[in-house]
């Protein structure tokens, strides 16, 4: 998905284009660019987000411009491939959202006619085609160019010296925003709401010619009157699709994310297997990550150790940079959802220097990590807006299961049931979501406390840590995640009526030990919220509050338990009136040390 915008009017186009683009970042943000017409055409573009581009820009004059933000689904984002694209003479600029099917054929023909291409993109064809047909009438040239194109071509074109923007819609959305002596284009309404609430929706096949004072739409060569709409809703509402916060929306997307991530791996045909890429199988491995990804990595340690029976170390990337050592097997998995986390990138540099083979797991196609790692595995979580990571973390867990399965030292029957268990996770997570009112009720209790402990054991110990981190970052309650058995070595001194404990109880060899810990905690009068599998009656009469999750293979239980702790943090923060999507002092991806 991409976002495109255009402006023509009396004001300086630069800040308007950048602002409109930033509102479209929910459609993607791996590269972006703007073109502004002055005495010549000025194009500024780069990989990365709009804010980053903004910092590098000089002050540009000019009141006509177009812009683009991109989320690559295939192909690497690069400065050269970023939009806008221009023609040979550098007078025409084009932004485009779609795919041109007959791109190869057109490119060859244009090259023969003497056009030089600088990028690999299909979009650049458009600029050269318009140049080819240009004969005094810019609009006619665009129409002729579009006549040659097969495929999806929602686009906006501009030219130096032309007081107009020419746009076309095919298969991707495009709207015209009407202002006072100025007009706009955008992929979606939210981009424009800071400037106007009057919009025209273009239909497939429409060509719109827009000047500062006029909008003319043509369909099949005939002028057509497209009705103006008044937008009554706000920007935020649209993107949150009914939800009050992005975080809850993204938590609810998780069943779909798991389904998409799995479908992507399964249909890829090749097993993701072969971590080493050299057929050497899976020996001891090192997993590096930061923050929430680190907790996913810790779960990964348990998954691989349990299934493959090899030693695995999971470490914080930042710590590793200063004092870590690679494993004997010289293999490492690095998790970073944004692909730009500086600590993770530095760790990879160190690993590479030590001769390690690095597999990166990331959600952003073409991000920096994909260029420095030997191999990349993509998550299919889509853009995540909320600062507190939820769906990318769940997708990381799924990737780790899928990584380990091909090496699993289990019989074929067990392997079958594991693959089946993995497939049932979307339904299991949906069940947790359907039961969110019960979690919300517990959260309303938690909201009244200043300190909370989370405990878990074995594979759910990292989930306890993740629960504590989520609660800290969005509800500002001090929380700590502990291994159940560690609590008695010190933290017991802090227990009491005012310090509740959230306990994750798993139906595996840790069950008895965790139950014992909870009894010890109850003896210190701490309120206990237990997260247990359905049918587990052991907490009745012991815990003060109980949330049940579907009873599934303990190996997969971190997935459902994580969703519970996410919801717990969300509803606690909501009860306390916190700014959930944008917690204080935090940013989505940490690109500084």
């Amino acid at each position, binding site marked *: 998905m991409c976002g495109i915008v255009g402006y023509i009017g009396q004001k300086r186009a630069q800040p308007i284009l950048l602002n409109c683009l930033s509102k479209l970042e929910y459609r993607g943000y791996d590269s972006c660019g703007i073109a502004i017409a002055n005495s010549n055409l000025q194009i500024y573009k780069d990989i990365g987000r709009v804010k980053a581009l903004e910092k590098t820009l000089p002050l540009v004059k000019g009141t006509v411009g177009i812009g683009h933000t991109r989320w690559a689904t295939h192909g690497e984002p690069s400065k050269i491939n970023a939009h806008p694209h221009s023609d040979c003479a550098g007078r025409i600029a084009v932004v485009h959202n779609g795919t041109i099917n007959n791109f190869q054929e057109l490119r060859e023909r244009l090259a023969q006619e003497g056009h030089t291409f600088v990028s690999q993109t299909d979009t650049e064809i458009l600029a050269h085609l318009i140049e080819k047909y240009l004969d005094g009438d810019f609009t006619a040239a665009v129409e002729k160019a579009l006549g040659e194109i097969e495929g999806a071509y929602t686009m906006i074109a501009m030219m130096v010296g032309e007081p107009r923007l020419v746009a076309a819609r095919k298969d991707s*959305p495009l709207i015209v925003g009407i202002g006072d002596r100025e007009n706009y284009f955008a992929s*979606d*309404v939210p981009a424009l709401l800071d400037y106007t609430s009057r919009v025209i*929706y273009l239909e497939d096949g429409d060509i719109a010619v827009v000047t500062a004072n006029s909008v003319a739409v043509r369909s099949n060569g005939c002028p057509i009157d497209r*009705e103006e*709409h*008044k937008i*009554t*809703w706000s920007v935020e*509402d*649209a*993107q949150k*699709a*009914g*939800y009050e916060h992005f975080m809850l*929306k993204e938590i*609810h*997307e998780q069943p*779909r994310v798991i*389904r*998409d991530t*799995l*479908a*992507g791996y*399964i*249909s890829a*045909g090749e097993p993701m297997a072969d971590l080493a890429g050299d057929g050497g199988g899976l020996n001891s491995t090192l997993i590096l990550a930061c923050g929430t990804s680190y907790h996913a990595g810790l779960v990964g340690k348990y998954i691989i150790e349990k299934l493959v029976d090899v030693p695995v170390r999971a470490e914080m990337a930042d710590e590793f940079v200063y004092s870590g050592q690679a494993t004997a097997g010289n293999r490492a998995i690095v998790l970073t959802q944004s692909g730009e986390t500086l600590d993770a990138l530095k760790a990879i540099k160190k690993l590479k220097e030590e001769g390690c083979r690095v597999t990166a797991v990331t959600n952003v196609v073409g991000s920096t990590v994909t260029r420095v790692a030997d191999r990349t595995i993509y998550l299919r979580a889509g853009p995540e807006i909320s600062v507190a990571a939820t769906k990318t973390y769940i997708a990381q867990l799924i990737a780790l299961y899928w990584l380990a399965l091909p090496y699993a030292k289990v019989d074929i029957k067990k392997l079958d049931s594991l693959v*089946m268990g993995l*497939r*049932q996770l*979307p*339904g*299991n997570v*949906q*069940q947790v*979501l*359907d039961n*969110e009112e019960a979690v919300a009720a517990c959260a309303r209790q938690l909201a009244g406390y200043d300190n909370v402990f989370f405990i878990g054991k074995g594979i759910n110990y990292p989930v306890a840590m993740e629960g504590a981190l989520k609660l800290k970052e969005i509800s500002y309650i001090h929380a700590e995640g502990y291994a159940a058995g560690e609590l008695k070595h010190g933290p017991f001194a802090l227990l009491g009526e005012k310090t509740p404990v959230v306990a994750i109880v798993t139906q595996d060899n840790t069950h008895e030990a965790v139950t014992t810990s909870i009894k010890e905690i109850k003896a210190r009068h701490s309120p206990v919220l237990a997260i247990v599998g359905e049918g587990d009656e052991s907490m009745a009469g012991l815990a003060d509050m109980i949330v049940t999750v*579907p009873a599934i293979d303990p190996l997969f239980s971190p997935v459902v338990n994580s969703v519970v702790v996410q919801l717990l943090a969300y509803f606690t923060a909501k009860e306390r009136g916190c700014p959930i999507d944008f917690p204080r002092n935090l940013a989505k991806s940490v690109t500084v040390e």
Partner: protein
Amino acid sequence: MKQAVILAAGEGQRLRPFTLTRPKAMLTIADKPILQFVIEALVTAGIREIICVVGYRKEQVYDYFGSGERFGAEISYVTQTAQLGTAHALATVKDKVAKEFLVLSGDNLIDVKTIADFARISPPAVLVKRVSDPVRYGVVDTEGGKVKGILEKPKEAASNLVNTGIYAFTEDIFRSIGDTLDIPDVLNDMIADSRDIKALETDGTWLDIVYPWDVISLNNAILKDIEVDLGGAIEAGVTLQGKVVVGKGTVVRSGSCIYGPAVIGAGCDIGPHVCIMPATSIGDNVVISSFTEVKNSVIGNDVSIGTGSIVSDSVIDKGCVIKGRFTAVGGKSEVRINGESPAIDVGVIMGEDCKVENSVTVQPGAIIGNYCEIQMLKMLSGKLPDHSLVY
């Protein structure tokens, strides 16, 4: 007419077990929620601005439709906290609507033909439809294209024209609503006030779903109009015949036969040697193991059906895990809901997230609640409540 209000807050009690975690409008027919048919009809008719009134289990609507972009619509949401009636629901959007707008029910299945003419009518107006069993609905008495009165579920129907629950209104309607809870009552009041309300008849699709087994007949009716679309990986030695849709990322393994009309969702694993017979809809991420036949049935997302099973005339809701040698074949059913039993042959109606062990046989028409667990070698019949354990 550029705007539409869709009422999608209703629970659909009589459709249990399918409406425990979703509103009636989110029931799936031919791999799409009913509400999607309504939204697609509106978008095709040129109405993109849609306000959805949601209430019961509203998150399911948010999660599926989002901001509407995937469907070419701009959807915004308003919550009706207590579902008291259609007029009450409509009143919640008073401050959000344009001068003129359509009102539709999110849980009647329609197509663009149904509303194409109606979208151009000048309000106020009611869309009516001729049906064979009018006493189940609000019967509309008309004269010269005008409504004379609407009588809800009469003992004897004066005509077979019924109210489709699709209306065209201007913002004036809010002055007439007052404390009245249902739209037909509001209209009757307006008529008593000698206001003119037009009646326009449609011959497009308008299907109501009342009982859980209606899912089977509606699915059958809708699948006739699908268009072939093959994504995914179809192995050599697979037979495809008729109109078949296969979603992306799905694998259909060797030796399998799919006879359309049939829809298979994304990310499924079908076969080897599986027969998907006509009038079957299968959701996303479904596994159907070897030597199983599925016919005239609706299978939800994330379901798995084991080897050597026979499933016909059935609805199996999302997340069910059924082991091998499961048998559910349609026949005359003794099961009743509100005194009504199905007019069609029904196999099994199974709620979500059930676990069924090997070699379970279901007698025709049995209704298995949500989250049931069935041990091996059991024979099921009648109605099982949610969370039943059969040992």
